């Protein structure tokens, strides 16, 4: 944003100060993520930049921590990754199914007690995780699902559905209901209308809600800390243990992989958001 030529000097100074402040804030936001990347290739065991790394000496870099992550002895990451993916995938499917149905109901103008029901359904997102953790732990212990995959998946469905409900309701708010009426007038039954007309139109919202649910489950520590037994360890639990006990560079290798994963999710989410904005744009 170039300034016009006639700008007075003190506004000019203010403008550049403002841009500098913004620059610092962006740096503050993004820079910490980039520290992890080079340090995960450290040849030494310490989590500081060695002198060799500062001189860009090739011998100071190695991929030993990635090797350790995959093939290391007694390595917990394989099991953790498997568990994390299983739990996150099932939790996402559950969240999408329950959340989309609920959002369809909530978007209907005939829905009674909309406000209070919406507030209840969103509450797991607002209530501090530690409280959710304690409450869900009491429940799962009572029904005998503590330390099982099922228990953790159910807990993550609770935590994930608010995101699906929010994104799908938002998509449906711009939804043109005359298309479903058109389908009905042409003789289509409600299920067929939903599958052929409604679902394709709200799909971007459903998928981006699903992404939120996936990330919530994949990154969740607090509730799993209460629920997990030895067999249900997940990636975040392993990282948590590692960060509390011995901060090894292997954790940084895992962290780098997670950053790559989050970049992929970010790109997908952005593409979906644009697509859904385009669809809504046509309706207007």
């Amino acid at each position, binding site marked *: 944003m170039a300034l016009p030529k006639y700008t007075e000097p003190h506004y000019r100074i203010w403008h550049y100060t403002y841009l500098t402040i913004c620059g610092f804030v962006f740096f503050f936001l993004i820079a910490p993520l980039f520290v*992890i990347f080079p340090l995960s290739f450290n040849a030494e065991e310490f989590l500081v930049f060695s002198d060799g790394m500062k001189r860009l000496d090739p011998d100071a870099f190695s991929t030993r921590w990635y090797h350790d992550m995959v093939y290391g002895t007694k390595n917990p990451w394989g099991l953790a990754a498997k568990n994390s993916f299983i739990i996150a995938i099932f939790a996402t499917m559950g969240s999408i199914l329950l959340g989309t149905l609920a959002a369809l*109901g*909530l978007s209907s103008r005939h829905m009674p007690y909309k406000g209070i029901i919406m507030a*209840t359904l*969103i*509450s797991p997102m607002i209530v501090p995780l530690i*409280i959710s953790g304690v409450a869900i732990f009491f429940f799962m212990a009572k029904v005998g699902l503590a330390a099982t995959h099922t228990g953790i998946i159910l807990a993550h469905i609770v935590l994930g559905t608010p995101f699906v409900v929010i994104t799908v309701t938002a998509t449906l708010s711009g939804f043109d209901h005359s298309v479903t009426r058109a389908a009905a007038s042409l003789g289509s039954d409600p299920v067929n209308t939903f599958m052929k007309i409604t679902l394709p139109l709200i799909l971007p919202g459903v998928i981006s809600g699903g992404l939120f649910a996936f990330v919530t489950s994949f990154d969740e*520590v607090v509730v799993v800390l209460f629920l997990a037994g030895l067999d249900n360890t997940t990636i975040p639990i392993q990282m948590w243990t590692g960060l509390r006990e011995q901060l090894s560079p292997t954790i940084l290798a895992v962290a780098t992989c997670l950053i790559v994963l989050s970049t992929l999710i970010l790109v997908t989410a952005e593409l979906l958001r644009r697509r859904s904005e385009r669809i809504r744009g046509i309706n207007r």
Partner: protein
Amino acid sequence: MSSETQKILTTDGIPLEESLKKAERKNKIIAFLLVAPLLLFIIITYVFPIGEMLFRSVDDRMVTNMLPKTFEAMKKWDGKELPQEEVFKAFYLDYKILVDEKRHGKLATQMNYTKNGFKSILKKLARKQKKFEEGNYKEQIMSVHKRWANVEYWRALKRRSPSYTYSKYLKGIDMYENEDGKIVQVPEDRRVHKILWMRTLNIALGVTILCFLMGYPIAHLLATLPMKYSNLLMICVLLPFWTSLLVRTASWMILLQQQGIVNDFFVWIGLVTDDTRPEMMYNKTGTFVAMTQILLPFMVLPLYSVMKTISPSLMRAGKSLGGTPFVAFWKVYFPLTVPGIGAGCLLVFILAIGYYITPALVGGASGSLISNHIAFHMKFTLDWSFASAMGLMLLSGVLLVYWIYNKLVGIDNIKLG
């Protein structure tokens, strides 16, 4: 002109009004049935368990059920002087059952919470009661230890007779019910919880203000820059947003350690010398810095979505009417962004006040928050009823803010990404 003849009928011959009502009811039921599975699921697995926490936090039936005869006999006791023989006898009979069933240890632990020194005299009584003879239990119990002849201990026992208690809530705000049944503060040097609540509030408010001060300028820049630049800069906000919380906390642990890059930088610019590197982790500073960076996207995104809707021509109009850019900003632009500020600040505050992971990893002792305390009681002291009470006190604070948020912003107006 009677209204009967005026009624409009559908082709089936049913009055239109009735037919519409029927259709409306059918739609209502369909809408409700769609919501029902999730609603039931959340109520069973989430709302009821939170209700159970409430129950657990006031439930004190354990002691009540252990000494049923004693509390029955104590009903007639006024609590001024030592109770009568019948109370002693009832207590002896109750306690004998507990010892025979090996449950007296639990009673000792519980009573020691109420009054210090109870554990040892209960243990001693457990050993001695085997040789008790029938009759005159008052003398026999009092001869076990001189504290049994002290009326204070009997009053402490009577205080545990109700099935429900709010003592855990009092403990959470550093208060207790003393011997006379008055609610007083604990001695000054033992007021740990007050410090914890103040610190949590302090950090949550501080992080919210910092996030606002840093988030507002960049949200403004993102909203006013041309699309192609702003999309690029938006990545700086969205990448941390999507990245694992533990990864971000780990990176702050690396940055803030004593030999870390931030300290290296301070030494390099001469702010500190190499041997006076400040401790920035495992204290309040670490918690502040890391939480601000982690929660900043939650401030920027709502602000951005509001600012995006403000037409740039409004600022131009303000300037053309003679306002300096500052006046135009303050009188025109800023008031329009207030909904976004409200949304962002409340969201960050709600998230910050219940934060657990980051304070636990970088906070150390002086940077730990209420959440960490709750986890501590859940996992180590196993005082679950106290953890529940603390949790619910925190929850009521959060729900208050949530309610304000709902009134101001509307819960269905939350924007994600």
